[in-house]
């Protein structure tokens, strides 16, 4: 829990997030129009999306399935009956004059998300609900001096609104929540989580209170479209609220808009100006009734989710919580790791994946799928370490060469003559020479200076260009110096 020290004492943040996640689906929530990103404006608009007279919505079953999958992935209650309602307001990019959403009866009820924090600790955040709704179109204001353009491609696209409980207490927790939620959605294949394409957006609800006291008045900051911005928006809004409160002012319940360019938010509308959305059940749609058997079917098709995978990596592979958390954060990485770890030392595999491999990946900026060193090749490298063909130090050199050329580890070791010297007679000969040529250091060792052993190891390595088996070198040195 991160407290903010004000002039008059400590303040605690209370944060709840509403995430709008675009459902992965070829068609829209109530029409067959395509949902592909980046198409020509108004090229993916059906008669229903444009709200032509007499047009009627027909629910896309796949969207419903995706919502149920997500609910199950969030350990949430699936409501067998839910109701689509109309949220009425006028805007140029809202063709129907209402958004079809769910209000009193959402498809998914309460659930939980477990946050993985930086220190390896976990923390539970409650999910209040998840409901299905239509996205609006897009207004484009900057292409004409006095007119706006409307693109309805997004109009009617399926969104899941996932509402958390006010369980978060810091910007870091909010960031961890969004990362974890995105991971789960990606595992489930229900949302691609690409915030820069707008397929995941967050509204931040935030209030401040003295620790232990009841909740204060909250503000809602709308449509923040990156995790970094969410964290910035939280920090900025928390500071603003503390300032107001410490000057004896009151927080006004309002909707605010965050500007990523300035890092500041401004008031959009107050509670008094808030829309009266006049929700009522959409008479064009019957209540949505789900068959429990269908839900069971979906449940059976769920992949292993990050929390389960993490505990398996911890208990099955003996990985520390932090490493396990890092590895499961991405489903493809986790699968990559498992391939590398298969039949090998899992800790060694984890170290190599999170160490050298992630390092090279980040540095090169290429995608996991396109990496020159695939899981099989990395495994081959680890095999050479395990059977003593090369040392860990040489392995790093080999890995770099593999990344450059895409070749197998064994081929590189062969070509470069990097094979480890594990022949004890060869090492004994070297050790004998070094002992003979360095009587001073021998004296020091015999006088009880253990550190000098390291110097002898270094000399052997120098003589073999690092190829001597370090274990064997140690063993021989102790024996000879003994």
């Amino acid at each position, binding site marked *: 829990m991160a407290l903010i020290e004000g002039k008059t004492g400590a303040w605690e943040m209370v944060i709840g997030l509403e995430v709008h996640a675009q459902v992965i689906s070829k068609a829209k929530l109530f029409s067959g129009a395509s949902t592909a990103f980046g198409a020509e404006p108004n090229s993916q608009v059906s008669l229903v999306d444009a709200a032509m*007279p007499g047009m009627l919505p027909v629910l896309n079953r796949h969207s419903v399935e995706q919502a149920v999958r997500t609910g199950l992935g969030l350990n949430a209650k699936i409501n067998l009956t839910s109701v689509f309602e109309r949220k009425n307001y*006028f*805007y140029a990019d809202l063709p129907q004059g209402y958004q079809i959403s769910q209000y009193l009866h959402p498809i998914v009820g309460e659930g939980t998300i477990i946050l993985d924090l930086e220190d390896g600790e976990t923390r539970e955040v409650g999910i209040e609900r998840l409901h299905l709704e239509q996205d609006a179109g897009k207004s484009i204001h900057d292409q004409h001096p006095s007119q706006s353009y409307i693109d309805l491609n997004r109009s009617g696209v399926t969104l899941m609104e996932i509402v958390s409980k006010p369980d978060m207490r810091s910007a870091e927790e909010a960031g961890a929540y969004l990362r974890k939620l995105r991971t789960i959605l990606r595992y489930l294949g229900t949302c691609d989580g690409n915030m820069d394409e707008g397929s995941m957006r967050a509204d931040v609800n935030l209030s401040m209170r003295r620790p232990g006291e009841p909740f204060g008045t909250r503000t809602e900051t709308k449509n923040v479209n990156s995790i970094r911005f969410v964290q910035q928006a939280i920090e900025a809004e928390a500071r603003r609220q503390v300032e107001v409160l410490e000057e004896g002012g009151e927080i006004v319940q309002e909707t605010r808009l965050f500007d990523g360019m300035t890092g500041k938010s401004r008031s959009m509308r107050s509670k008094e100006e808030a829309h009266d959305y006049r929700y009522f059940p959409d008479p064009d749609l019957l209540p949505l009734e789900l068959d429990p058997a269908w839900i069971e079917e979906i449940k059976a098709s769920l992949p292993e989710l990050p929390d389960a995978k993490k505990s398996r990596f911890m208990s099955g592979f003996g990985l520390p919580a932090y490493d396990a958390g890092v590895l499961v954060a991405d489903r493809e990485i986790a699968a990559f790791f498992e391939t590398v770890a298969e039949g090998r030392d899992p800790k060694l595999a984890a170290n190599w994946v999170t160490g050298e491999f992630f390092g090279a990946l980040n540095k090169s900026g290429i995608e996991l799928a396109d990496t020159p060193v695939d899981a099989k090749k990395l495994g081959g490298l680890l095999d050479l370490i395990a059977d003593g063909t090369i040392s860990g130090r040489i392995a790093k050199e080999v890995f770099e060469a593999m990344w450059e050329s895409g070749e197998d580890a064994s081929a590189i070791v062969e070509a470069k003559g990097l094979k480890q010297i594990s022949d004890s007679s060869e090492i004994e000969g070297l050790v004998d020479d070094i002992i003979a040529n360095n009587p001073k250091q021998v004296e020091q060792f015999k006088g009880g200076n253990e550190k000098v052993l390291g110097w002898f190891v270094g000399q052997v390595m120098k003589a073999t260009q690092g190829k001597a088996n370090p274990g064997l070198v140690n063993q021989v040195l102790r024996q000879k110096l003994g």
Partner: protein
Amino acid sequence: MAALADLTIAGARGLLGKGEVSAKELTEAHITAVEAARPLNAFITETPEKALEMAEASDKRRAAGEAGLLEGLPIGMKDLFCTEGVLTTAGSHILDGFHPTYESTVSRNLWDAGAVLLGKTNLDEFAMGSSNMTSHYGGVENPWRKSGDNRPLVPGGSSGGSASAVAARCALGATGTDTGGSIRQPAAFCGIVGMKPTYGRCSRWGIVAFASSLDQAGPMTRTVRDSAIMLRAMASYDPKDSTSVDRPVPDYEAAITGDIRGMKIGIPKEYRIDAMPEEIDALWQQGIQWLEAAGAETVEISLPHTHYALPTYYIVAPAEASSNLARYDGVRYGLREPGESLDEMYEATRGKGFGAEVKRRVLIGTYVLSAGYYDAYYNKARKVRSLIARDFAKAYETVDAILAPTAPSPAFGMGDKMDDPIAMYLNDVFTVPASLAGLPGISVPAGLSQDGLPLGLQILGRAFDEETVYRVAGVLEEAAAFEAKPTFLAA
């Protein structure tokens, strides 16, 4: 030619089948009739060229042995149905110049069955009204006049153009839509047959929405048999309408056997309202006697929540309408009145595009859905609505159908009741309960008022039991032997 336009659907079907008349000849006769009836203002758009093309295509299909259920029969289409390439207005200024790129499912079904489009019929703006006086395109005249009084009368509404056109022999039949009585009441006012099927029987796809949970398309014809023939062609399950119901469409015509012996007909005591005109009550009693004479048993039943139906309807329907009409914003189609800002453009467009009655209902609907009023109005109305449905369900445990008057009065003068919306809304008192319950109901011309105006009786039935409704209606029609013709035809 007049003789051709005076045919029934069944009669014309027979002549076409025997080759005694062609679809083209039949259509030409009706085009002439439509032109002659222009003073009635029953059509917003006439489509004579399209009609002739369709008729010629129909004659070819028939020659090729591919005749559909309504092959070659010219009809009117309420201008609430979207028709591809043909101006569709919903009777509103706000849809100025709107030519849909798509065809409503019901009209598509009718063309697939071989029907011919004569034109788009006038209606109350967005189907909101009981007089057809709220149309941006002007009121429609009822082809009937009171005896000894030449003042023009309303055809009822909202399907007033369709009712007037069919009564005036401009079309063999026409489509209507019924939200709270918009098929049955104008049918009664114009002396024709109007059927509102069960909610979900006809697809709503492509019909400009008024109140989605109530809107239902149905046929308006001169005989019960014609109604049965036309409904069969209109009805279908439509996956594009989530409230459409997937069950086979029966041969309704075959259900008109003339035999209702042993049937139980409910007479709802709550429909005996105060201020019921003597002649309406007398006609109702006459109807009871006709059905009994045909071997049915009539029993008094109670529909205890009837009294609340009208206020419930005037909450639910405007609430849905206020939301359904939000899409007419000047952004994408129809009228756009310029403004300095988006809000000003909205205000100017909707201020100018909607008429007074539509604005009234949008305001009522917005109000009843507002925070703080929702529970007291909209939510309560929803609850009452389910009680009304339960009343009917309970009644149908003991009776097969229900007999009631269609409207509490005959047609009134054009311009009457315009300054008194409550009096206007009372027109729907007998039709609204079945609409709220989603049940089928048919209005059959059963007699004339003292002033010589047509009066209707309605038969209500169980959900998706249109067959029983038609069977009883057929008997009622035969007993009533309504043969009077509108004043307009004599002129």
